[in-house]
């Protein structure tokens, strides 16, 4: 019953407060890192802040709506959601609707909004997996009944995302599926087999795209071409180093002055590291850790298997994105092009993550 204190009024503060703090930090960091770029590109230093601010408000609205809808209500929406996601994912390739940025076709235009369907896919898949795995709870260790259907659904989405191309999201979805199915009782032998089978495929994909080789090289030997493929990761290192223990202070980052590419999106943590130092990074890591542990706790305490898996799916998805993004910006993993939940600039990702938080809080309130 002591749990109830933290969910007074149905709001799980262990979830809500870290989310709000991270969003706040994100807005500050986005302004700091993007104002110069925005001025440079659009002659409006508030350009990115304003857009992100709008999405934060929209995100909170979404969060409270979802929080107040019992998760069982989505069960009927599983297939429509999958279907919509799939269509949106296909629309990416329609000329005039799909939007290409830097060689990758990941966005679609819907009126004034630009959406990234792969973000919605993550959410749809989370709901689908929770629904499906709880339904087939007893057959999860079986190959044909437990593994194959999920694998096929996931493969359909993953291959579409892969040809955008977005290997990062593909890999993250794959990893997420594996972890999720592992928890749900997948056969360890199957798990290992999948990893072994997919490894050559991933290897092939990496080695047959020049930019992926570069990214890999940047990861393995960043200092060999500091002006070339190592440029981004080196400037990320420089941002971390410049920050030191206490940071150079909010707004004082030098690497944001167009040195560090994507400093307001994928590499926003680098700017935060420079401005807030190791202390800031430690706090951010703690906040994410609280969210993840709390999410897992909610999964453990969930009233039913479906809710449990849904909470688990949402939490693991967020957690994976956090550790992969952080690993990337600190040079522990090859560059992926993944955003950091709540902190990075990007509307679709933010809305999906806020929806995820809404789901967690909804489940939490109904324990």
């Amino acid at each position, binding site marked *: 019953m002591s749990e109830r204190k933290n969910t007074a009024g149905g709001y799980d503060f262990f979830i809500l407060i870290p989310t709000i703090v991270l969003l706040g930090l994100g807005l500050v960091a986005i302004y700091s890192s993007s104002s*110069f770029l925005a001025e*440079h590109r659009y002659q409006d230093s508030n350009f990115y802040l304003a857009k992100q601010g709008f999405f934060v408000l929209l995100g909170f609205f979404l969060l409270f709506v979802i929080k107040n809808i019992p998760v069982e209500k989505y069960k009927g929406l599983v297939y429509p959601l999958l279907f919509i996601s799939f269509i949106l994912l296909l629309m990416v390739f329609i000329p005039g609707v799909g939007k290409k940025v830097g060689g990758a076709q990941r966005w679609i235009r819907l009126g004034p909004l630009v959406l990234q369907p792969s973000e919605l896919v993550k959410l749809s898949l989370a709901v689908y997996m929770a629904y499906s795995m*709880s339904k087939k*709870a007893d057959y999860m260790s079986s190959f044909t009944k437990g593994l194959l259907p999920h694998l096929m659904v996931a493969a359909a989405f993953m291959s579409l995302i892969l040809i955008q191309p977005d290997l990062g999201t593909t890999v993250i979805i794959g990893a997420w599926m594996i*972890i999720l199915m*592992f*928890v*749900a*009782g997948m056969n360890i032998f199957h798990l290992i087999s999948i990893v072994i089978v997919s490894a050559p495929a991933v290897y092939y994909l990496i080695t047959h795209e020049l930019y992926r080789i570069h990214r890999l090289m940047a990861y393995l030997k960043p200092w060999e071409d500091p002006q070339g493929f190592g440029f981004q990761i*080196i*400037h990320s*290192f*420089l*941002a*971390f*180093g*410049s*920050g*030191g*223990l206490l940071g150079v202070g909010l707004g004082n980052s*030098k*690497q944001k*002055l*167009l*040195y560090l590419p994507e400093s307001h999106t994928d590499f926003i943590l680098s700017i935060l*590291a420079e401005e807030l*130092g*190791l202390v800031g*990074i*430690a706090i951010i*890591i703690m906040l*994410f*850790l609280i969210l*993840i*542990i709390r999410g*897992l706790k909610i*999964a*453990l*305490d*969930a*009233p*039913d*298997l479906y809710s*449990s898996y849904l909470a*688990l799916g949402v939490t*693991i998805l967020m*957690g994976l994105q*956090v*550790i992969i993004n*952080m*690993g990337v910006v*600190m*040079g*522990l993993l090859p560059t992926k092009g993944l955003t950091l939940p709540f902190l990075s600039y990007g509307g679709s990702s933010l809305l999906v993550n806020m929806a995820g938080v809404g789901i967690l809080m909804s489940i939490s309130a109904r324990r």
Partner: protein
Amino acid sequence: MKVNEKKWIRFRIYIVAVFFLFALSTVLSRAVQLQIIDKDRLQKMARDGYRKIVPLPPKRGSILDREGHELAVSLEVGSVYAEPRRIEDKVGTARQLALHLDMPAGNILKLLKKDKGFVYIKRKISSDKIENISQLRLQGIGLTKETKRFFPGKEIAGQLLGIVGDENQGLEGLEKRYDDLLRGEAQVIVQMKDAVGRPFHTSKPAEEKRDTHNLILTIDKDIQYKAEQALEKAVIKAKAKSGQCLVMNPETGEILAMATARGYNPVTETIAPAFNPNIFRDYKPEAWRNRVITDCYEPGSIIKSFLLSAAIDAHVVTPNTKFNCENGEYRVANRIIPDTKKHGILTAADIVVVSSNIGAVKIGNELGYENFYEYMCKFGFGQKTEVDLIGERDGLIKNPEGLGPVERANIYFGHGMTASSMQLAAAMSAIANGGRLMKPYVVKAVTDEAGKVIKEYQPQFVRRVISPDTAKTVSRILEDVATERGTAFDAAIDGYRVAGKTSTAQKVDPETGRYSSRNFVALFAGFVPANRPRLVILAMIDEPRGGHYGGLVAAPVFKDVGKWALANLRVQPQLILAENDTVSETKKISRGKKKIPVVEVKEVKKLDTGEKRDGDLLPDFRGLTMREVLKNISVLGINITFEGSGRAYEQEPEPGVSIDDVTTVKVSFRPPA
């Protein structure tokens, strides 16, 4: 079904939790590594990345002549460079640049197509062109500023001035000698730049910057020019190997001109290409060294004037002491001392005037080599004059120890010893100025950037060489050299008393080691006006072909330069007083000319240029130089026509008529006396 009911699911969720805990711990340790352990290294790299050290175009002081004419100045110019890899529209960029640079677009395009990070398109172009190009805002095209050394006087005094390297460092000549004064500090500003190169913070240049200074030389640009011209003429005429000319103020040691002419080219029938700064790069030192100080040669007969000075000063002889000149053949030990003309009995004075070697040996023997050596050292031979230039040589005068009679005899008339033109001119100055050896110098003053004099170099008295009386006596004798009777009649300048001494020294043939019968040094060094010398002029022609006598080859240079310099310095022509019964033709002529009234030189400021309406009358231009006339006429708004050159002596209409009636003034000029 609740998860709680399945223990293994709980366990697997714990594993997931541990996985995340582990992953985030890894990330945190990595942050510690980057932000604490590698902090210093990364921080430094980051700073190096956004901080750009921008060198400022270094300043360099000007070199001016004694009247403030610029001889060497630094102007700010710019360079255009490209970063070819950043240029997308190479053709368009090349075309645009071609419009502003005098370069074909094709050449520029070739540069832009190079697969390089950086390439200069054009260096050292004027700053207004830089301005135009910067306004084009071409992608991948950058501009820098630097300085370029200009020599407004073209090749004037080239060897003396020297050159400046690309890094603003003096490499030769005065530029090198006074580099630390001329060179401004290589200043840098630290700019913090964003990744596209726009500065967002610029440091101020350091406060305690080193000042650049200007040099004011003792050189007179006009005399220098005349010296170079006259020398060049003489070298061409004599088809000589090279030539030197030095003009000095004997009272102070100030050097007014210092010229070295390059050799006659028999193919082009001119002397080697005019001097220009590239000569330092393109030719060997032989072509450009300042021979006046760097080349020591056997000076020949000119030494007789110092020998006589020493002998008179030591009271060994008087000008009238008679010597038997042996009719042109005199044996010292087993050697015959030759004379060019046979002389019988000559006075000590005449020995110098007619330049008898035998007579010189006899005077020398009377004086004794030890005394002679001592005097020669006092005259400054065998040691540097310490003129403020680089590359000066000592020359050689052998000390008495172990010196045989033949060698001694040779040295009395200037062989078997070496001296530089600078040393000879300085020694001649000592005779001219009453016996004082002055240290020659070329830098008169140092000014700061604003032109305020911060250091002035005063004449430096080195030592007394001979008594004023001796100097006066020798001067009188040397005056006779420039007469019909002497060896240098061609040195005589109408209206002025000239004193001096010729030399026609055989050169040692480097192949045989013996004196050559072909190669001579023809030299004349003298001073004018003889009674109150203003100028010491030395002219030396190396290896003249045809006539080789100093009086014929070198004396005309003295005359040319002297005449011109005297006018330039406004030295009044003088009536030459008859000292003896034989008044030469020259003196008669000059006396005749003296009858032309010399118009008092009027100071420009005396003319009421400021209040021209006040007068309304045409001013008197007579006695003014062309430049001064122009200066005055410009405020009157009337036309002028010139005739002749030199100073104005006649004008039409007459001075004093009302300006309103005058539209054109005709002014006639002629060289002063």
